[in-house]
């Protein structure tokens, strides 16, 4: 194993901002900032629809603002295989809907509340993702 592209400071600062966003949303509106849930509800539920829309718009504005102020494009390198993109998207959509959360809802908010349910979910999706990358690298 070798360590590459290590950016602990910007990642930590980004993490602090994500934590701050979670705090603002919970202390302000009393809601958990889980992105899979908010996106899912924006599509299918009338409850809090405008709030969900504004939250999503805020997330989309994030990279635009950073690009504007730094003047450098946001790094974005993604695989382009249609089969992979569709399979991954379906798995993420179905999986987060069944499991009730993703990296934000379970991984950040749940663990911050010391929820054993979210801790189990996080260990499982982290483990599954690590094994997927390992196996995909073998073929």
């Amino acid at each position, binding site marked *: 194993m070798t360590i590459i592209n290590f950016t602990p400071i910007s990642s930590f600062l980004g993490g602090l901002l994500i*934590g701050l966003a979670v705090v603002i949303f919970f202390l302000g509106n009393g809601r958990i900032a889980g992105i899979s849930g908010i996106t899912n509800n924006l599509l299918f539920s009338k409850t809090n629809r405008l709030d969900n829309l504004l939250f999503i718009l805020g997330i989309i504005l994030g990279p635009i603002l950073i690009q504007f102020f730094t003047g450098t494009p946001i790094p974005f390198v993604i695989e382009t295989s249609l089969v992979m993109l569709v399979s991954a998207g379906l798995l993420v959509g179905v999986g987060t*809907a069944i499991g009730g959360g993703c990296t934000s809802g379970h991984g950040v908010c749940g663990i911050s509340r010391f929820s054993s349910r979210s801790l189990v979910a996080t260990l499982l999706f982290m483990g599954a993702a690590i094994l997927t990358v390992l196996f995909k690298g073998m073929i």
Partner: protein
Amino acid sequence: MNRFCSLVSGLVFGLGLTLSGMTNPEKVINFLNIFRAWDPSLAFVMIGAILISAPFFYLAKNKNKPLFAETFSWPTLKEIDSKLILGSLMFGIGWGLIGLCPGPAIASISLLSQPSFTFILSMLAGFSLIRAYNLIK
């Protein structure tokens, strides 16, 4: 005021995702690639986020209501059931295949990347499948 709060939370979330590097699928894959060339940076995202949010969730337990809404919507599910396990495993496999989870996927809309739109539409199709399944069940 609650509308403004939603927009600000989303914006700060989006700034954090971008600054952290979570929005780059390649960086996410390198973070998950612990057995080969490993980029551990994204572990610091979770550490940073939890350091801020954990104390406030703890403090909120003794508060009756949030600033701009009537009640705190505390998650009610406690059980570790087969749905949680199966769903989390599926999500993990999907995340590992491409390196996008829902937050960064949404943030990447601003980058107008065609592969990321394909991913997002498939994710929304996944949400729809489960909604439809729950309706006919």
